């Protein structure tokens, strides 16, 4: 398969580009922020995403979805990133859907995701830095389990209908085995949600589970075998976050390059200065390389190929570095105006930072790759 978009994918990209730019441009985020919006996204827009079919991209055709892949999901995510559109698309239509594929719970949740009525959140992280450690306990109780522990950085946790919770049914916190993934409904007793406003004005929650009772049928996949499902969820989430971040980085670069073409100092366009041209050209190169790495990861995931997980880590790490560069260069090359709230470039920096941390930063993934290579 060639490593560029095929004709159908290019058409989807055109559609997504126009749709997101029209309905959720950066001004949309700015307005939500200025209105102190408590939801974190526009439910009406989420409905429109559903009407466009976007929420069903990764849902199999047998389950009434489009049965497409991570390449297509990434196309939509890139536009979400480019426009900084607040959206539960990544957690719901990409990560949660990937986890639920083939599970018993899909009949309950897929229709509501397809229609844009439900939002899912991911309760995975327990520490400020993403890592493999899962301490939250799930103890057998009657016909089901009791969950106890804390989670953090749960995007949309305060409004989600479905919360996917990674908990430990065996072993100790550092073990890779002994994890079970649960589909928990929002109104479960004993669950408290503490939403925190983040730098990018999105909302992510700290969640406390105090003997939260769930039925046995909340288990996604098999008890103690949640590692497989969690890996699927994380691979989808990381690839999706990488695609969204590519949009953020590309959006920041486009803003900046346009500014270089228009801004005049010393009577000439500042884009004619070689010092700035070289910085911009280097940035372009980093983003192009990241774009290739992301498409490679998406294709390998869609093909169920070996090596997909490593490609995902390469993609997340490379775009982490490239977008971090893009937003920093963006502000620097804008000069003073880049520091003002009135200009959008600062929003790109904030969103880029959040996505850099989500599902592991560049160092985390470089370390994973090193471990996989045996050093």
């Amino acid at each position, binding site marked *: 398969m*060639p*490593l560029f978009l095929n004709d159908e994918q290019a058409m989807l990209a055109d559609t997504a580009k126009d749709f997101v730019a029209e309905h959720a441009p950066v001004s949309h985020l700015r307005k939500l922020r200025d209105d102190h919006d408590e939801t974190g996204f526009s439910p009406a827009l989420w409905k429109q995403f559903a009407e466009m079919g976007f929420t069903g991209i990764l849902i199999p055709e047998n389950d009434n979805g489009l049965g497409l892949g991570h390449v297509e999901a990434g196309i939509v995510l890139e536009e979400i990133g480019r426009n900084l559109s607040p959206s539960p698309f990544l957690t719901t239509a990409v990560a949660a859907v990937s986890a639920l594929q083939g599970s018993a719970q899909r009949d309950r949740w897929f229709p509501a995701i397809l229609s844009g009525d439900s939002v899912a959140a991911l309760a995975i992280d327990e520490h400020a830095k993403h890592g493999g450690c899962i301490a939250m306990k799930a103890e057998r109780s009657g016909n089901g389990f009791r969950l106890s522990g804390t989670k953090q950085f749960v995007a949309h946790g305060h409004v989600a209908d479905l919360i996917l919770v990674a908990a430990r049914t065996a072993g100790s916190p550092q073990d890779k085995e002994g994890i079970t993934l649960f589909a928990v409904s929002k109104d479960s007793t004993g669950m408290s949600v503490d939403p925190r406003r983040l730098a990018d004005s999105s909302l992510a929650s700290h969640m406390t589970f105090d003997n939260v009772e769930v039925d046995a049928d909340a288990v996604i996949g098999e008890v103690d075998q949640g590692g497989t499902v969690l890996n699927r969820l994380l691979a989808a989430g990381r690839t999706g976050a990488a695609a969204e971040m590519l949009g953020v980085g590309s959006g920041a670069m486009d803003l900046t*390059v346009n500014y270089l073409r228009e801004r005049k100092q010393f009577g000439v366009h500042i884009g004619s*200065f070689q010092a700035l041209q070289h910085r911009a050209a280097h940035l372009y190169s980093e983003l192009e390389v990241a774009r290739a790495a992301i498409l490679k990861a998406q294709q390998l995931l869609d093909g169920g190929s070996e090596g997909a997980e490593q490609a995902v880590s390469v993609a997340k790490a490379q775009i982490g570095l490239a977008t971090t560069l893009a937003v920093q260069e963006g502000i620097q090359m804008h000069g003073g105006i880049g520091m003002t709230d009135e200009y959008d470039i600062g929003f790109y920096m904030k969103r880029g930072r959040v996505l850099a941390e989500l599902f592991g930063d560049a160092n985390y993934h*470089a370390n994973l790759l*090193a471990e996989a*290579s045996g*050093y």
Partner: protein
Amino acid sequence: MSDDLEAFRAETRDWLEANCPPEMRKPMRSDKDICWGGRNPQFSSPEQKLWLDRMAERGWTVPDWPKEYGGGGLDPARAKIVREEMARLKCRNPLYSFGISMLGPALLKYGNEAQKLEHLPKIARGEIRWCQGYSEPNAGSDLAGLATSAEDKGDHFLVNGQKVWTSYADKADWIFCLVRTDRSNKHNGISFVLFDMESEGVSTKPILLISGYSPFCETFFDNVKVPKENLVGELNRGWDVAKYLLGHEREMISGMGLRDSGKPLHESAIATVGRDAEGRLADPLLRAQIALFEVRAKAFAAMSERFIDALKAGKAHPAQPSMMKYYGTELNKTRYELLMASGGSDALEWESAESGNGALPRAWLRTKANSIEGGTSEIQLNIIAKRILELPNQ
């Protein structure tokens, strides 16, 4: 369609298994294992010759060139499968050749039928080794400022002047050369000609480099007669050919970012600093540097695949080779810095049997030219800024 491709993949794998000698699937030990072909070919082993002969016979030294010119006649999808299967079996490249990577594509696009039939099959079979006469003492980054002249003498041109940084001019059989045919017009006064390095009036002088090797020469032309039929493309339009060819040269040089030095970086480091109790490379900072480098190297491998796919499908931006060249060469320099840091004082040995007479430090120094030859990194960044980002001229 996809079944056909899978059948082709299986066929290709079987053929390579049967025909690539095991010796040719081991990493190259040094530059001596590179096969350049030519009138006086140097083979480091009989297997190397056998491997070249078999691949040339099949047209697979240039899988995507037309069959009538010595190629395999494969479409992009099948040519990619051959590359992938060769990589899977770790087959060595049977033939390194500026004829394949640079002149060939230019002749396919700009050459006339007689030139294609004369030169391409010999390139494909590795019978003629080519060198490139581009840079001059006063025309480096400003290549179009070249002065080597070709005077019209009726049935031939009379070429006079000097080239520099001519790679392997002393070992090459023929040269593709940029010459000035009109002094009044800088870019539209250049022509692209081919001639035999055995022609009367051609002489070469190797340049000793910091690596202790002399891969480049000064090349002198003193009243060299070049037949008119060796003009490629139109008179005074050689710059078009030159630029097209430079794109391919940059593509080739960018491939250095992918080149495996035989074993992974971390193995070199483990050999000197060892592992800690958990089995990790014992120097945590070196480990981190290597791990972050590997991210970039693997991402660039995906970029190279994407670039070639786009190029073969005619979808690549014409200035994209500049990005590949820039990124690939900078990456390769970093790789060798890390190899030197990993090797410690062992990597400093210049003249010892253990070090293969300083193979690593000499290779490390050689990489410093990567971001200069074929257009410096700064020239590539200029091209990206102007042609891709469309930033204004000064």
